[in-house]
């Protein structure tokens, strides 16, 4: 590993909000008047890329697909310490679902290759599907691991990592190159520094269009998206519920009683 590792981090710019609003008619997200930020899950991906670089050497390239204004999100990753940033931007890319997105990202990853590890955030706060990472791996023809919460080590063309599942922690070893989707407990993302931000102002954000990657127009954007949004709605938050107060012992007793009443135990 004397030359270090080539890492590519995929990010998306999303509206900075906890409650995403959308147009009920078209099902499109309302982005007007809301600031755009790096998808919070992708910040963990960027941080993990930087930590890999600090530990093993190499480079961290960042890739995003989006409108020209997504450049500001990429510039921010340069401020954080990433080496190069690429924006896949083309009218032909617009309206893509996760499949068309991952097809496009796959072509871009191959264009900016070589790569040992592609890191994605687990999901986006606006789309919330978690599909782009696994689909990207499919397009690239490399393995993929989701829910990664720790990289144990990278050596001899293999990566050892753990992932957090509902029923426990799984330790895996996989060959490189690989695509991983990281969860929020993998690290604590750093803040950009003043000097980093100053340097990033001048950085070049390279643009990639559909022509640059010889994309099949039929597989891009809205035309290349098999997904059809039938209905979109905000789930009603659960209401009611009992609030009980007391000492830990009292609470434990109350919960036990409640579970018995509900015939759960």
């Amino acid at each position, binding site marked *: 590993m004397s030359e270090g590792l080539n890492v590519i981090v995929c990010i998306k710019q999303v509206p900075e909000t906890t409650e995403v609003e959308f147009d009920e008619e078209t099902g499109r997200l309302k982005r007007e008047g809301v600031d755009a930020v790096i998808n919070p899950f992708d910040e963990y991906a960027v941080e993990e890329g930087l930590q890999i670089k600090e530990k093993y050497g190499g480079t961290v390239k960042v890739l995003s697909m989006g409108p020209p204004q997504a450049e500001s999100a990429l510039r*921010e990753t340069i401020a954080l310490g990433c080496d190069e940033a690429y924006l896949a931007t083309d009218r032909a890319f617009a309206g893509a679902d996760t499949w068309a997105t991952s097809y496009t990202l796959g072509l871009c990853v191959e264009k900016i290759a070589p790569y040992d590890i592609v890191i994605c955030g687990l999901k986006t706060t606006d789309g919330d599907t978690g599909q782009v990472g696994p689909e990207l791996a499919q397009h690239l023809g490399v393995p993929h691991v989701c829910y990664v919460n720790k990289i144990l080590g990278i050596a001899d063309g293999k990566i050892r990592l753990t992932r957090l599942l509902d029923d426990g922690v799984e330790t895996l070893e996989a060959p490189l190159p690989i695509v991983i989707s990281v969860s929020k407990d993998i690290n604590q993302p750093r*803040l950009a520094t*003043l000097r980093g931000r100053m340097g990033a102002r001048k950085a070049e954000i390279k643009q990639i269009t559909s022509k640059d990657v010889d994309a099949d127009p039929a597989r891009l954007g809205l035309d290349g998206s098999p997904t059809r949004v039938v209905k979109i709605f905000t789930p009603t938050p659960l209401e009611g519920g009992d609030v009980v107060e007391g000492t830990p012992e009292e609470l434990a007793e109350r919960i036990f009683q409640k579970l018995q009443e509900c015939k759960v135990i």
Partner: protein
Amino acid sequence: MPEYGQVTQELRGKLEEIVGDKHVSESPEDLEKHAIDESLEPPHPPEVVVSPGSTEEVSAVMRLAYSERIPVTPQGSRTGLSGGSHPVFGGIALNLERMNSILEIDEENLMAVVEPGVLIVDLHAETEKLGLLYPPDPGQESGSLGGNISTNAGGVRGMKYGVTRDFVHGLEAVLPSGEVITMGGKIVKNSTAYSLLDLIIGSEGTLAVVTKATLRLVPKPRHTALVFVPFDSTRDAANTVSEIVRRKVVPYALEYMPRHAVETAQRYLERKLPDDSHPAYLLIAVEGNTVDEVESQLETVGEVCLEMGAEDAYVADTAAKQEQLWEGRKCLFDAYKAFWEIDEVDACVPRKHIPDYIEGAEVAAERHGVIVSNVGHAGDGNVHSIIARGELDEETWREVLDAVIGELIDLALSLGGTISGEHGLGLAKKRYLPRQVEEAQIELMRGIKRAFDPHNILNPGKVFDL
């Protein structure tokens, strides 16, 4: 000790008639709960806790207390730090928590009308929904507005916006006799006669019970950013503050934290802040209506920090990242309290004397063997010296604490400062008042107190002795 009447069964019955059975309590839990605030003062349980729901009820309770000579201690959410809401002479704890409605947010006049039990955090949430801001932002967000008004609380935005007094334009208050008076209103200017409004603000509940307040709001700037800057010395940090001001940038907050505070925050939050290897830190918060406006302030702030010797600084631009940094500052009082027995001095000194005060406080701490963490609103000169017991035994701690508090107050006064910047004197600091003001002033204050409260029934034993 003044002669006071007792809370008899008969009186209790009358109180129940006024506010309803449910809102009069003598339960040991309630008496215990209403015996303290968040200061280190020993508990002073009331004889009865009365929770009125309206101005009329407050007035009726006061009328009764006045005729029976029962001491009444107004209480908000009891988060004060100087014992101001301790019922020192027992009597009635007048709990205003039920009067917690935001009555109006007037977007044309930019004013909010609130009851005294409204929590600062709730007013902030409601005004922010409308793109408006009530700038006073004391660290204790669960504090009530009645309490904020009574102590003239400040908070982190003091540097740019001022303190509670600058935002209270109208008050309705109940006098000890039970009479209701209204002062000011939704008006920006007011030159009509003496300002009793300003007299009541900061009077720590000793002159009248605030039952309604009209508060000025400002448009909330759309964008903010926060910078966390490590420095090699307190002096470098302080010089940076002066230089930022000199370059005509007015951050909305400018906070100082020593390394001990950063370490304590990390321990309490169980996570790292961006840096913990420097002796001094500044948190600098800027705001503007456009991203460009914020970026240009950030640029100037950045230049100054680097010129003043900072190696680099960390920039939080999204709301979530700023919140994470702010948490490191705002948790400090709770963090110190979680690990040590603590007390505090909240002196305010002229901004340029902050390093003199901090260095002097550190010397005093060293000499007495206590931990003193000087956490400050560096932008306005208000330094919270958190004094923590550390390894001292109980007896030594008590002695040392008195000495340290006295020395810190003398130090602040010698630098042209004041005993309390925003917490008030209450019970804990009242004995230091003669060190700051002439006897003639205290005598005038006594006269004012007597004019409002001839029988000394409202929050007796606070601020100064009669």
